[in-house]
């Protein structure tokens, strides 16, 4: 009795000890090693001055008769269109986005219903490639009869060079981060395992940097193109040695 019990105890302790050391030895990978990896995200940003602007330019007219509303609208719209051509816009830069004709109820001072009036809207969406002319264009179209203008946006017509520079900066950022992390963790960087890229653009404040946007002469509408930021994220996964 008293002899068997210690033997059993020893066996139990031995098997528990085996359990304890089994886990670490498996993790260190004696036969088939688990991959040790380091993943970082690098970010590259490049600011570019826009070289194209988009804007909606509309003519809105109202009259008691639909014929009169249309005739007025057509005359003013034609003047706007002619002005755009004179200022260097081509057919490709102008697209009709709205041509609407609709009746609208007129109300009197007490809210009573009066006659019907007709409304005609003719709007074009234009691309302006010479931003130095943008202020002059806006000023001229309003004087030519445009009375409904909205939605100005700036863009870069060819962003491939900026994207390329941003990708390079993003990879360098990721590589620097990976080296830093490996050094501080006392590990060595191995081969790159995965590379993923994604990119997007965002407007960048007009107050910053070079500011070579299309600020127009003071007699025209002042407009500023500011900058657009091209952003690239790169995910790099390294093997650790």
């Amino acid at each position, binding site marked *: *009795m008293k002899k*068997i019990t210690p033997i*059993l*105890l020893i*066996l*139990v302790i031995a*098997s*528990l000890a*085996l*359990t304890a050391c*089994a*886990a670490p*030895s*498996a*993790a260190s*990978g004696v*036969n088939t090693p688990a*991959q040790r990896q380091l993943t970082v995200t690098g970010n590259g940003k490049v600011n570019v001055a826009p070289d194209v602007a*988009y804007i909606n330019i509309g003519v809105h007219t109202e009259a008691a008769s639909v*014929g009169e509303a*249309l005739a007025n609208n*057509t005359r003013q719209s*034609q003047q706007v*269109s002619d002005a755009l*051509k004179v200022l260097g816009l081509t*057919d*490709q*830069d*102008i*697209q*009709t*986005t*709205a*041509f*609407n*004709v*609709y009746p609208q109820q007129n109300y*009197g001072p*007490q*809210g*009573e*219903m009066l006659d019907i009036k007709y409304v005609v809207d*003719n709007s*074009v*969406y234009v*691309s302006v*490639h010479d931003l130095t002319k943008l202020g002059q264009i806006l000023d001229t179209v309003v004087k030519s009869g445009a009375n409904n203008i909205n939605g100005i946006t700036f863009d870069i*017509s060819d962003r491939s060079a900026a994207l390329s520079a941003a990708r*390079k900066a993003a*990879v*360098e950022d990721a590589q620097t981060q990976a080296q830093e992390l490996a050094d501080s963790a006392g590990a060595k960087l191995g*081969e*790159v*395992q*995965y*590379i993923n*890229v*994604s*990119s997007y653009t965002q407007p960048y404040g007009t107050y910053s940097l070079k500011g070579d946007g299309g600020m127009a002469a003071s007699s025209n509408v002042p407009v500023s193109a500011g900058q657009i930021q091209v952003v690239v994220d790169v995910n*790099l996964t390294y093997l650790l040695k």
Partner: protein
Amino acid sequence: MKHKNYLIPGFVLVMLVSLVISASSLKGGGGGGGPAAQRTISVNGIGKVTMTPDIATINIGVHTENEDVAAALSDNNVKAQAVRDSLTAFGILPADIQTANFSVYQNQVYGPQGEMLGIKYIVDNTVYITVRDLAKMGEVLTTLVGNGANNIYGITFDVANRSAALKEARKAAVADAKAQADELAAITGVTLGEIISINTNTASTQPMYSDFGYGGGGGMMAAAPVPVSSGQLIVTVDAYLSYEIH
């Protein structure tokens, strides 16, 4: 004595359990390694192709009002028929004319003090048309309004057959993705292997944004007709490519 009989099986059980645990943890640890994972590079290329629209769609409506529903209707019928006739005269085919709305309803008429004065009837007859000769678009609109159309909305330009543009955009998207992969491989010092996966995605076409100004002219009209410009459309294709890397 009886005490011992329970004790020994108890110890044996504990032993067995702990051995099973150690065995399973060994197995689990070994499974973590597995075959070497594939090294990859994933890029997203974009291809854009500018198209010059060759068709336009628009809603053309006749709206009439009268205290008498029959009078509102007959007034509307005369004008709607005149609109239909001028569409035909412009060579617009029956297949390109579809009635989008025919509504008859009454509106309460109110006086200066908010009192109800009576009812008026409203008739709307609207057709959705496709214009395939954009050079005539402005003239069509002017003539239709002259013949009684007084409720017009929703002009949209489109390209009837965009398969060639889509093909070109797909090609450009893959080329862009490949160029990006080459660039990244050079920067990171890896070598591109086989393509593992290709996915493409066609974004909806958007108006204009003429990145490069080629293509035919839009249909800007001369003096009298409504000025209408078809501008340009852009078709965009995204290509997602994964390469094996060495």
